[in-house]
């Protein structure tokens, strides 16, 4: 391994500058990683285990049983009810993100099975406006919970979000109540809800549906909290403790059930869903 690392680093110094898009530098251990290798390891640094962000389609491929996924999101589009403008208009920002991601807003998902258990799986897209929750994200989550309840599916949300979307102001705040209350549809049908917190999950997303699951997983090293570290630092005017607001810190403080490395996420999710929703597993165990 050490030799391999040395070799890899040398190779980078030679060609990294000319073709930078083929190589990535791990922000944690600073190793230069060949992009194809990183993708093959589910965007986890082969050297130190740092979890890079995973795009939503790869996330769905990781968690859904092969061939079982049907997309249900995409028909709900954002509006600009406040005609919000800061240094750029919200309408322009939306158009740019839509063009970059090819999706109407910051959420993607659909029906699938996970270890055979019928599931409604949603993933928040950090690449779209920092995964922020506006009316569309709130609506898709509420619809997702209602559909899961109606169809007897488990509900899984992979969170990745800076919080509520400022450009929808009070309406985005209301999504916290809307999503939270929609979860009660699952409670009523005794269906499981698993929340998977990934880097980062903060603000109004943590403080609503993401924190209210039957079982909460987090990926290693993810930033998770209510207020952002910069805001806290400004408020208290002190340095923050080592590892503050990281997954392991939250596990220690009793806020999560398990910190699960990405490579084991699918298997652990399938086990939990199988235990919480045994009647959902087909008799042949498919």
């Amino acid at each position, binding site marked *: 391994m050490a030799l391999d690392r040395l070799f890899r680093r040398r190779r980078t110094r030679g060609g990294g500058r000319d073709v930078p898009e083929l190589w990535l530098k791990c922000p944690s251990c600073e190793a230069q990683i060949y992009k194809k290798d990183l993708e093959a390891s589910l965007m986890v640094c082969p050297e130190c285990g740092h979890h890079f962000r995973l795009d939503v389609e790869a996330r769905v491929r990781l968690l859904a049983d092969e061939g079982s996924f049907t997309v249900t999101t995409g*028909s709900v*589009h954002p509006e600009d009810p406040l005609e919000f403008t*800061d240094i750029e208009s919200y309408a322009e920002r939306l158009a740019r993100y839509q063009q970059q991601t090819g999706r109407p807003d910051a959420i993607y998902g659909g029906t699938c099975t996970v270890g055979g258990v019928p599931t409604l799986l949603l993933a928040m897209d950090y690449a779209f406006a920092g995964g922020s929750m506006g009316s569309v994200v709130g609506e898709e989550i509420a619809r997702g919970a209602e559909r899961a309840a109606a169809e007897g599916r488990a509900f899984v949300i992979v969170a990745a979000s800076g919080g509520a979307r400022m450009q929808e*102001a009070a309406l985005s705040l209301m999504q916290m109540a809307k999503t939270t209350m929609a979860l009660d549809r699952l409670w009523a049908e005794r269906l499981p809800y698993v929340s998977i917190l990934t880097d980062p999950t903060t603000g109004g997303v943590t403080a609503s549906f993401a924190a209210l699951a039957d079982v909460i997983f987090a990926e290693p090293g993810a930033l998770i909290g209510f207020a952002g570290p910069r805001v806290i630092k400004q*408020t208290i005017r002190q340095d923050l403790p080592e590892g503050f607001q990281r997954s392991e810190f939250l596990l220690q403080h009793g806020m999560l059930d398990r910190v699960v490395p990405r490579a084991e996420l699918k298997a652990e999710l399938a086990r939990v869903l199988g235990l919480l929703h045994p009647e959902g597993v087909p008799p042949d165990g498919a």
Partner: protein
Amino acid sequence: MALEFEQPIIELEARIRELREYADAGGVDLSDEIGLLERKLEQLQRETFGRLSRWQRVQLARAPGRPTTLDIAQHVFEDFIELHGDRAFADDPAVVAGLARFRGRSVVIVGHQKGKTTKENIHRNFGMPHPEGYRKAMRMMDLADRFGFPLISLIDTPGAYPGVSAEERGQAWVIAQSIQRMGRLGVPAIAVILGEGGSGGALAIGVGNRVLIMENAWYSVISPESCAAILWRDAAQAEQAAEALKLTARDLRELGVVDRVVPEPGGGAHRHPERAMEELARALAEELAELEPLSPEELRKDRYRRFRGMGAVRVE
């Protein structure tokens, strides 16, 4: 400490007071002059308050002297008895709660509490709760539910406290739980935004069947200063951010986020708190009368419908 735009009003009021004193002392009849000035004052107040910018409303919402939760507990309600503690960690002075009577019926009150002086504000943490404050609020929701009493929540916070201890004790978790608990109540719940309605820290006790707002209060996902710091990269752009956020009572009524605006007397609730509280009492009585005939299940459905419909989307 008057706000700049209040200055002409305050000067005119002083002038009227002087004339009255002079008239009383000298036994002179100045009622014509005084009447003229009073009409002028009324007109000035109407004009000034009719064209306030959103940022000026935010300043009014923060003015010391506005009715706080404790003021309302003592003046709008009778027989208020404060209850303390979250039964887990501590008593949070930024949230006050208790039992009281309102026009013959028992109610449970919970609200953010700001101080009126700097010393009091430090004790109350400027109305910014820690997790124990929200756990106390949840205890009160349970109490209301168990005895079938209406829950009245009074919102006045810049936001939940952003600090190390608050994060360690699960600030996000308790806010989420409090939203959920309030949403599930089988009793009438009325939330009133008294001054500042800052983000999740406000919404945690804002899941009412009816949401009321005082005329000069604000409610949004973020304070104008923080919004400006993030989007404009300059907190000094707060005035612009306040405009963009559309966070005033009238804006929120148009967006459907609040159901009713409680009018404040001319000059604002901070200058005439008793009259503001009379208006609030009237509004609470009317709203409660509408909710009380509903069954627990109907109340839950009503709340679900209210919040499920929030937002602006286009379905294709």
